[in-house]
């Protein structure tokens, strides 16, 4: 790919992502309304679809306010961090054969580096706001995110063992025979739970917990800065859905009557909807339950998964191969 073509691809992808995130706010409200037997936004345009764009305009025109006691530079940088790191995460997602911005050898680790960086966004936001609710919310978020990050990566070691590579295109290719959600079902469950906690979506949205922390780390944010947090959250949701599809559900693979990219997008859309359905279905756990669950249940399960997968892979390979 020449540099110009690459630049074109990047810009197209970025704008597609921004549009998708905006549209997702509408999809979320419509689906929630449907499940709860309400109408949801249905006035602007067909099925209310223009509501998403109306909201973008609204959020741009809202007063861009910085609390006087806040630490100004940190307060402004914080929301940009989460939006930019989540956008960067998409650089390694293979949409179709050959259709990936950077096919890195260490793609999986790159994904983790980006989710790791997004922790700073909430921590800085909560600290810079100089507000009790924000600070409590950001502390909770940081502790929750770093806890769940541990076994998010642990849950994927099984996938890496099976594929023998970190490169996402190799992982997808290795799933031609069987999608990895069959042999790595435990890994899938752990990864999915961790992904929800990482993006702090419901039911694991304790950092925001409207009833006690009044939106937590972004209590003091307004206008486009609030919008960037929102953007980061929706991008994170799409990114983790895309990762679940790539790692466990064969990425772009599928029966040939549809082009690969359509398969990829369909599968990703399915998992995004699952994310939204969880919000409609599940109550929020207590914080001690959330943390205990992470360290006492998911961590041992993820470790066990690695041991069992490693043992099976070694046992089923030919002895000559193992002895070498």
């Amino acid at each position, binding site marked *: 790919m020449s540099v110009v073509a690459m630049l074109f691809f990047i810009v197209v992808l970025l704008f597609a992502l921004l549009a998708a995130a905006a549209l997702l706010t509408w999809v979320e409200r419509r689906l929630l309304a449907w499940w709860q037997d309400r109408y949801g936004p249905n006035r602007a345009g067909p099925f209310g679809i223009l509501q998403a764009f109306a909201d973008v305009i609204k959020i741009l025109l809202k007063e861009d306010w910085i609390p006087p006691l806040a630490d100004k530079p940190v307060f402004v940088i914080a929301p940009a961090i989460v939006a930019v790191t989540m956008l960067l995460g998409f650089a390694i997602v293979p949409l179709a054969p050959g259709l990936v911005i950077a096919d890195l*050898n260490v793609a999986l*680790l790159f994904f983790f580096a980006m989710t790791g960086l997004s922790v700073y966004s909430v921590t800085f936001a909560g600290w810079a706001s100089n507000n009790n609710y924000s600070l409590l919310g950001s502390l909770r978020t940081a502790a929750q995110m770093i806890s769940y990050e541990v076994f998010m990566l642990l849950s994927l070691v099984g996938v890496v063992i099976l594929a023998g590579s970190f490169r996402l295109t190799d992982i997808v290719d290795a799933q031609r025979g069987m999608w990895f959600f069959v042999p790595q079902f435990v890994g899938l469950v752990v990864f999915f739970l961790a992904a929800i906690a990482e993006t702090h979506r419901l039911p694991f949205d304790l950092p925001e917990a409207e009833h006690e922390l009044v939106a937590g780390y972004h209590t003091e944010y307004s206008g486009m800065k609030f919008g960037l947090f929102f953007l980061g959250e929706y991008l994170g949701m799409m990114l983790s859905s895309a990762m679940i599809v790539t790692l466990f559900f064969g990425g772009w693979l599928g029966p040939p009557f549809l082009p690969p990219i359509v398969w990829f997008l369909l599968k990703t859309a399915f998992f995004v909807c699952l994310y939204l359905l969880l919000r409609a279905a599940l109550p929020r756990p207590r914080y001690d339950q959330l943390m205990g669950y992470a360290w006492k249940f998911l961590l041992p399960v993820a470790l066990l998964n690695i041991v069992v997968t490693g043992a099976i892979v070694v046992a089923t390979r030919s002895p000559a191969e193992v002895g070498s």
Partner: protein
Amino acid sequence: MVTTVLFYAFAAILLVAALGVITARNPVHSVLFLVFAFLQSAVLWLLLEAEFLAITLVVVYVGAVMVLFLFVVMMLNINVEELRSGFTRYLPLGIGVALVVVIEIANVIWFRSEGQAFVTPTPHAADYSNTKELGGVLYTEHVFALEIAAMLLLLAIVAAITLTMRTRHRPGLKVQDVPAQVAVRAEDRIRVVKVGPVKE
């Protein structure tokens, strides 16, 4: 050629960020600069074709170690003015340490490298996996170092817990038992007493 330009560009940013770490008045700003400095040094490692190490630097240092740093400086209520008052007192010691470091670096650069030119890493093919090569030697040739690392990590776990854990349930200490509170049923707490009419 391009890599040389990139190297100097990123090294310059790294230096600026490192200067920011020590000149920022607010410790949280220092952490922000330090995170930035780590990211830049990861890029420098990448330019040396150390792909896996570069990304591990980001995951471990930026993703984990700096979060702890941030927790500590955010919440310890460090009074910067107080810290600065000791500046002149510690200045001689600081200069001494700085001199030692400068001499050590000079030693490595000028005397140890005598006769051997700086080797620019050979560029690898796009599908060359640094990680695989590393794993190949780490778990066979350097297995002893690996197990020592495991011991160190175990030691660190034990040390961290010993240092930070307080015995929460001293006798006489009132603590909240949330699960017990939630599990309470009305029958345990409320006794419905049927009071009959009082007869004279």
